């Protein structure tokens, strides 16, 4: 009993710590990566390669004046950043990030490395809680009592509703192929076997379209360029968080990066085999644990870099283009993917 509680608490602490550290690391990667893409140096003064820059930034944000404008509706104005951060922290618990296998700690079996292993509705939890994140942005936009904020908030809610549909349809294809809502089983089904002896049976191979739709929709869901119309600084100043300063502003920034981490982890889990890796049958116990973490980490890092890469390479969409892409581009493609998975499963082309 107690050992299990301790193991669970340790998992929660490790996850929360890792995600929050990744937020800091990503801030550095984003700034240095942007500089690299734009052929300049970026922040390189604080610490080796500028690695301590996020620390300095955090201290700066903490000590900045925390002001609340006079005309905001105060309760909701304060609530909005809290909702954003809470929702961003809640989503990661259903993602399996490594294989604990038969390792026992204090007599308790470690099991798969995941915070909430027995949640039968795994993916649905993620989608459900993730869909609450929009409240943070909408409320920030409305309660700030500022026309730019309001426009940002409205845009964001319309955008989220449009892209959530395609995203969910893309996920549905994976769930059909896996026969389970639990992400641990989604991962287990992708590991260990190969097509033609060399291609790992990751969902990305038969469901290429679904994968592309999902990645694009996730970019829109995380409000990242080329879909960051909620903040669009060239037209809306900074959109929904224009009236926020100091740590309240930092809360929005942090939740954006946390959502990026979750989104990347979800892409890896659903379409790229999660923590599994070729040849994992030969390992067990601690080596398997370390290698699975490494496998997950490398895949995660690639998609996190993809977020940065795309942000600094593509221009922003216009609003009508965004809506057209969502409804006329992604939705039919996601439906097509779903039909394809259904046909392929009925014909026995994929298990």
């Amino acid at each position: 009993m107690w050992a299990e509680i301790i193991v669970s608490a340790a998992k929660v602490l490790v996850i929360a710590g890792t995600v929050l550290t990744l937020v800091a690391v990503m801030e550095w990667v984003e700034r240095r990566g942007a500089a690299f893409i734009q052929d300049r140096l970026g922040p390189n003064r604080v610490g080796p390669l500028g690695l301590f820059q996020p620390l300095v930034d955090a201290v700066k944000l903490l000590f900045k004046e925390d002001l609340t404008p006079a005309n905001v509706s105060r309760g909701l104005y304060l609530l909005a950043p809290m909702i954003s951060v809470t929702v961003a922290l809640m989503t990661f618990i259903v993602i399996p990030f490594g294989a604990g296998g038969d390792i026992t700690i204090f007599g308790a079996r470690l099991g798969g490395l995941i915070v909430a292993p027995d949640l039968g509705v795994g993916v649905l939890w993620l989608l459900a809680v993730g869909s609450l994140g929009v409240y943070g942005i909408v409320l920030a936009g409305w309660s700030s009592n500022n026309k730019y904020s309001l426009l940002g908030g409205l845009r964001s809610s319309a955008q989220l509703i449009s892209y959530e549909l395609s995203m969910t349809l893309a996920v549905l294809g994976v769930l059909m192929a896996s026969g389970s809502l639990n992400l641990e089983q989604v991962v287990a089904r992708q590991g260990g076997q190969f097509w033609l002896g060399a291609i790992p049976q990751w969902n990305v191979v038969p469901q290429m379209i679904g994968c592309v739709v999902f990645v694009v929709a996730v970019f829109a869901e995380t409000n990242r360029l080329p879909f960051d119309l909620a903040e669009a600084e060239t037209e809306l100043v900074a959109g929904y968080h224009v009236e926020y300063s100091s740590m309240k502003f930092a809360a929005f920034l942090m939740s954006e990066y946390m959502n990026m981490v979750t989104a990347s982890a979800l892409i890896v889990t659903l379409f790229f085999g999660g923590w599994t890796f070729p040849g994992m049958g030969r390992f067990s116990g601690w080596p398997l644990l370390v290698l699975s973490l490494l496998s997950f980490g490398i895949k995660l890092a690639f998609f996190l870099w993809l977020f940065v890469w795309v942000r600094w390479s593509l221009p922003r969409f216009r609003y009508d283009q965004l809506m057209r892409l969502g409804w006329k581009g992604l939705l039919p493609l996601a439906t097509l993917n779903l039909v394809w998975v259904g046909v392929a499963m009925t014909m026995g082309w994929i298990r």
Partner: protein
Amino acid sequence: MGTAVFYLVAAVGVVSAIAAMAHRNPVVNVLSLVVTLFSIAVSYALLGAEFLAAAQILVYAGAILVLFLFVVMLLGAPAEPDAGESRPFQRTAGLALAALAAAGGAAVVAAIHAAAPAGALRGTAQALGVMLTGEYLFAFEFISVLLLAALVGALVLVKRKH
């Protein structure tokens, strides 16, 4: 443990439901409704119906009420002024109807307590899926056609004006 959580969640649900009706700011009304629906979802989860809980959050709290909020914000509905008591009979009628509803609710709760507890847990995604595509297939398809008809009807009404 489960009972304590239930009473906590139920209290939150009732208070936010009252706030959803009584508060003068429309945005606060919608948000209170979100909290109510969320606490109902937690109650589902406590009953072991985790799929229903997730669907409740996903569909109602996550999607439908965002649209509500969207409309309220677009219309820019101002906080309502205190209307005073313009129709005195309303309060009497309201109290009488509330008493009636409470009696009905009590009867339902008593009936549930009298009924035998459900055997197998039927709240999982699989059980629900089997029921929807088997036993209740006709009702399920009927409702989807009904929703489609409502959608087409709304489109027709909008098009006629232009």
